[in-house]
């Protein structure tokens, strides 16, 4: 990486320089938002390679439109950038409309790299199954529900920030996230009965590998 976050300069200055396609500013924004965009996209598509492609498309679009971004602060910029990521994902799904089954995009043996060591094969298998279930369950939510869950529980934005990101009132966000997590819990509790999940499990044979989940969820993170 050519630059490090946080930058020495205020975010508004970084953003202003990014509008002029300053190399350092673009690099800083890239480093800052790469994990955010990647997780956001991954939560929607479930496939690592596809998430990488859509993440790349999102950042290229960011460069193309950087001179026109009207955001005034970091959250506004995040809303703008995640909006691009959302559109790119939607474009992908529109293009794949013929593939009615959402799980068709999964490839066996591809799971996200996580910040956990997991040399225990049983843990790897369990983590794989859990990951697959979560992705399938997320796809059962409405778009708004999925969005609020991703913003709140995956990207870690607080309620007020999510309200700004989604242009809603904080109270509406709280109600929406309640419904979203309730729906997610319902889908997850019905594990094993959903046909998409059954098909997904078939693509994840219980062969232990050490490529996934290298760190335990309990391990301290930076």
């Amino acid at each position, binding site marked *: 990486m050519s630059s490090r976050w946080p930058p020495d300069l205020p975010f508004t200055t970084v953003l202003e320089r990014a509008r002029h*396609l300053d190399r350092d500013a673009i690099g800083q924004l890239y480093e*800052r938002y790469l994990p955010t965009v990647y997780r956001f996209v991954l939560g929607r598509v479930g496939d690592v390679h596809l998430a990488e492609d859509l993440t790349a498309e999102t950042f290229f679009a960011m460069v193309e439109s950087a001179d026109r971004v009207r955001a005034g602060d970091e959250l506004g910029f995040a809303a703008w950038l995640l909006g691009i990521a959302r559109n790119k994902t939607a474009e992908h799904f529109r293009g794949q409309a013929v593939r009615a089954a959402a799980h068709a995009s999964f490839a066996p043996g591809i799971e996200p790299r996580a910040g956990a060591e997991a040399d225990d094969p049983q843990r790897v298998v369990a983590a794989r199954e*859990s990951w697959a*279930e979560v992705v399938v369950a997320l796809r059962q939510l409405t778009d708004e529900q999925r969005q609020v*869950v991703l913003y709140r529980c995956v990207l870690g934005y607080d309620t007020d920030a999510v309200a*700004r990101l989604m242009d809603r009132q904080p109270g509406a966000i*709280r109600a929406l996230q309640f419904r979203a997590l309730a729906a997610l819990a319902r889908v997850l509790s019905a594990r094993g009965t959903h046909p998409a999940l059954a098909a997904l499990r078939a693509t994840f044979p219980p062969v232990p590998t050490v490529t996934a989940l290298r760190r335990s969820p309990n391990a301290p993170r930076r």
Partner: protein
Amino acid sequence: MRPEDRLDALLSAPQPPGWALRSGASRAGESATMAGATPSSPRGSTPRVAADDPELAPLMDAAQRLAPLAAARPDPVFAQALEVRVLAHSAERRTRLAGVPEPEDVWGAPADPRRPRARASHAPLRVALVAAAVLVALGLGAVASFSAAAQAVPGSPLFGLHRLEQNWQVVTATDSAGRARLHLEYAHEWLAVVRDAATSHLGDPTYRDAVQAVRDEDTATAREIAAMGAGTERTALAADLANLRADERTTLRAALPAVGWPDRVLTTTALGQLGISVPSVASATLASHGQSWRVTLTGTGFAPGAVLLVDGQPAGQIISVLGDQLEADVPATADSGVPGSLGIGNPDYTAAATSGIRVTGSLEPVPTATTGDHDATPTVGGEPTATPGDDHGATPTATDGGGEPTPSGSPTQ
């Protein structure tokens, strides 16, 4: 407190080790400067609600199941490669937006005010600026020309450019159907010009160019339709072509009285191509008849009352119009040569002509003031002809059939 508020408080509360939700949040808000994105402290709520709240426990469990996603990281190799590509794309776009290379690219070295620049290093910039200026000028000229050409009417100097522009649009069409539609559109456009030219009594070249353009577009449309496979689109286009041709027939027939005889010949030819029964001339013979030419035309569709057309204009004295043959006498004058074309004009303004003229015999000399001037050697068809004082038995020259006679002088002096 409502359940959604309790849930929100729980989600915002600090979690024990292993609570992935907080970990994900801390990564998303890696910087403390990230306004509104850092995990917020619980606001007046207690984080221990979940354990005692059976309603919220499954929801919190569901949220915890998102831990792998919240902990997901892009592959470092991918991240590094993408950064290189993004920065390269950014540099490329910056250059594109600026229109000129960055200073260090122009001067070949980073801009350093302390370092004197070599004079020669200005050359690339000058060349680039001159080239840019030339390109801009050419571009503006081309734009202006094409803009003017888009309004060009037949007969104007830019008509050819307009046709070229239309042809280019046709070439860029993706399939036969697209090309056929363009040809149809252009055909209707030119047919309107034909109508206007006839109404305004604008003769050649406006009328002639427009008629020719209509016919070309008609033919091209038919060709593209023929190249299409059977189907509803082809049927629809064929119907459009039939409508165009009906319009052509009506327009051209109506135009006949309004245009001159040369344009009537062209119009009649076009009507013949559209399936209308029109006169035609198969052969034309020009025979010497004393001091005049006897013209004999053969063909079809000669109507009583027809006139002889010499070089597109009525001339001569009709002797007879019998069936498919017309005979007329054209008096020879001192300055008359072999005409370029001979034809017939019917009373209904249809006309036909041919340039294939067969000349037989030679005219008797017409006395003129220049008789005896042997320096002048008039020719017909490029060959010497009999002149006063020469051997009268000399074989007269003649062009027979397809050769268009191009008299370079008078047959007689």
